[in-house]
């Protein structure tokens, strides 16, 4: 479980996050949605420790993360897997080396054990026989799957996905969404997905928070989101003609 309490963050005079609080449960796909520039990415970076919030608290299964000494912070980070928007694969390493990387840094496993674990993760994301390719030799969808394999190789408790569908075609996007959802259930982990792709939200979102102008504007399930009368979230969710038509048809 991840709990955020009264989190605020500003850059100079610009207040980006304003007193945000929420709780993300284990075994669920928790989605952070909002317009571009609303503060989603900053919120996520605060949650994983890449930015230090001005005020507030972040608790990983009850352990306060922000004020922890660096070494203890590292221990929590070893339980975090992250899928970046641009995959962030190490371009000088092969697919297999990328997936094995956290194991080589933090475990005493033998090379063959590491290879087995990496292959297991690659098979889980339906990527076989690509071990010796460089990331640049794979497609965008494959890179996302490799990044998911790398994110889960250490059997994390928390999985963060920053716009996992950006730059992907609709079919591949569904494959990635499904993988994220399945892995969350299988591994019983707390998953946080940052997105502004409404298909994704409808497809896999269990618990959704809507960030608007740096504040947590709305929170609920996707069923509640569809029915809400909140003007800002309706403007966001039904921004496209497709979603408007769908809403009209479904009443």
């Amino acid at each position: 479980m991840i709990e955020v309490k009264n989190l605020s963050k500003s850059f100079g005079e610009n207040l980006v996050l304003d007193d945000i609080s929420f709780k993300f449960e284990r075994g669920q796909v928790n989605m952070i949605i909002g317009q571009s520039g609303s503060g989603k990415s900053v919120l996520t970076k605060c949650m994983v420790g890449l930015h230090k919030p001005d005020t507030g608290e972040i608790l990983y299964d009850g352990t306060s993360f922000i004020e922890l000494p660096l070494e203890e912070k590292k221990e929590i980070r070893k339980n975090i897997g992250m899928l970046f928007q641009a995959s962030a694969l190490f371009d000088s390493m092969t697919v297999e080396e990328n997936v094995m990387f956290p194991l080589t840094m933090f475990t005493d496993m033998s090379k063959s054990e590491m290879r087995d674990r990496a292959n297991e993760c690659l098979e889980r994301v339906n990527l076989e026989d690509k071990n010796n390719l460089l990331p640049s030799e794979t497609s965008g969808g494959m890179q996302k799957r490799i990044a998911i394999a790398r994110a889960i190789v250490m059997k994390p408790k928390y999985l963060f996905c920053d716009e996992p569908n950006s730059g992907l075609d609709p079919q591949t996007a569904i494959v990635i969404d499904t993988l994220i959802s399945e892995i969350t259930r299988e591994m019983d982990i707390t998953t946080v997905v940052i997105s502004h792709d409404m298909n994704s939200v409808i497809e896999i979102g269990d618990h959704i928070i809507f960030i608007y102008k740096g504040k947590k504007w709305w929170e609920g399930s996707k069923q509640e989101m569809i029915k809400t009368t909140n003007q800002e979230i309706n403007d966001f969710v039904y921004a496209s003609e497709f979603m408007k038509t769908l809403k009209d048809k479904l009443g």
Partner: protein
Amino acid sequence: MNTIFHVGRYIILIGRVFSRPENLKIYWHLFIKEVDKIGISSLGLVVLMSLFIGMVITLQTASNIDSPLIPAYTVGFTARQSIILEFSPTILSLILAGKVGSNIASEIGTMRVTEQIDALEIMGVNSAAYLILPKILGGLFIFPFLIIISMFLGVFGGWAIGVSTGIITSNEYVYGIQYDFRPFSVTYAMIKTLVFAFIITSVSAYHGYYARGSALEVGKSSTQAVVFSSVLILTLNYIITQLILI
């Protein structure tokens, strides 16, 4: 104010670089890779530069000595002094700052803008140590070898051109390069080399590590890395010479 900010941030970064590594075995592999990337791949440039500069120093010295009172071995003596004291440790370091420095800054800068450094941090890896320490140690290890090779080749290039063009005999040149030789000159050159190796690798890594934005910014940080490394090399060259030789 800006300078103080950068100096402070550089010192903090270096502090992180020299903190305890997570996995020594991995760092050893990275060190070997960097020795190859920084050193071995620069060997061609070092050989070419040193040979030709040695030749040119010899030719220029010979062409500028008109007086019959100046002995012919002065050509060898001048070539040796120029190469050991200045060309190999300083000028070659400036050239390597361009090649190695821009390479380090653009490699780390690209990793920064493509979030690879963030990925390392989230995994719990000390990204500064992982990316920069092997480069600094690799540079400190391999630069002295490159400079010694350069010294030999520079002096050899001078001998080869001097003898082949007939401006000096082999005996005179060899006497010149042995004349009044002080081994401390090599120690002085090595001290400079180690300082410059540290500057080139760490300053370039600093510029790459704090690159922001797009590919354009990576290019800018790469240029800045070369400019700042070069300015520091020139400044420290003066300071070290003043402290050690005078």
